[in-house]
């Protein structure tokens, strides 16, 4: 079974802190994604990566950056956390760069910024 794990289920940070969210997948998938989920807004793509050291902006990249130094690991970085970044963050991975392949999601990290 594909497993996507996220480093924390719950995280509380202060405004202005630098925050790292880590995601690891164990199926040798090329593609990895970071989404943000908010009530009434669905899943919004922040960044995705189709190969090591490669990244593409999604719909809402402002205030975020990403890092992919190894194929299995994709990190989301909040350079200076703000209260409007309080949200559920979901990581996903998929086998192929093109669309049309199943994305496997992690359990999510609920981030609260005070």
């Amino acid at each position: 079974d594909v497993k996507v794990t996220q480093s924390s289920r719950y995280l509380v940070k202060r405004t202005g802190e630098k925050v790292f969210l880590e995601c690891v997948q164990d199926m040798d998938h090329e593609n990895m994604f970071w989404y943000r989920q908010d009530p009434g807004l669905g899943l919004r793509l922040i960044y995705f990566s189709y190969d090591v050291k490669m990244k593409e902006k999604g719909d809402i990249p402002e205030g975020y950056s990403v890092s992919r130094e190894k194929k299995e690991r994709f990190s989301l970085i909040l350079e200076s956390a703000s209260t409007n970044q309080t949200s559920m963050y979901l990581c996903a991975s998929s086998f192929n760069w093109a669309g049309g392949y199943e994305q496997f999601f992690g359990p999510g990290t609920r981030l609260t910024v005070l």
Partner: protein
Amino acid sequence: QQQVKQSPQSLIVQKGGISIINCAYENTAFDYFPWYQQFPGKGPALLIAIRPDVSEKKEGRFTISFNKSAKQFSLHIMDSQPGDSATYFCAASGDQAGTALIFGKGTTLSVSS
């Protein structure tokens, strides 16, 4: 053109009834249409998916109906059960490299017993 519009936002169905969730898209380049199911505290998981070369796909109690000319697709849950209570997301993507899934805003389904 990149949006996927999903309705209703929430749905209450009696046990044994039919749940219907609708989605519409505008981008004619989309050719992969999955539905994801998310239970509280979990990440979304693929439920069923369809490509536009067929008008319907059925897996157990779950059916996707696809209308290419209207650019609409829907999820039907037959004999809805309390265990089906979850949030459902439709999505769409193209098949070429460089595309990502575009998700609808989700529908919260509650099946009452």
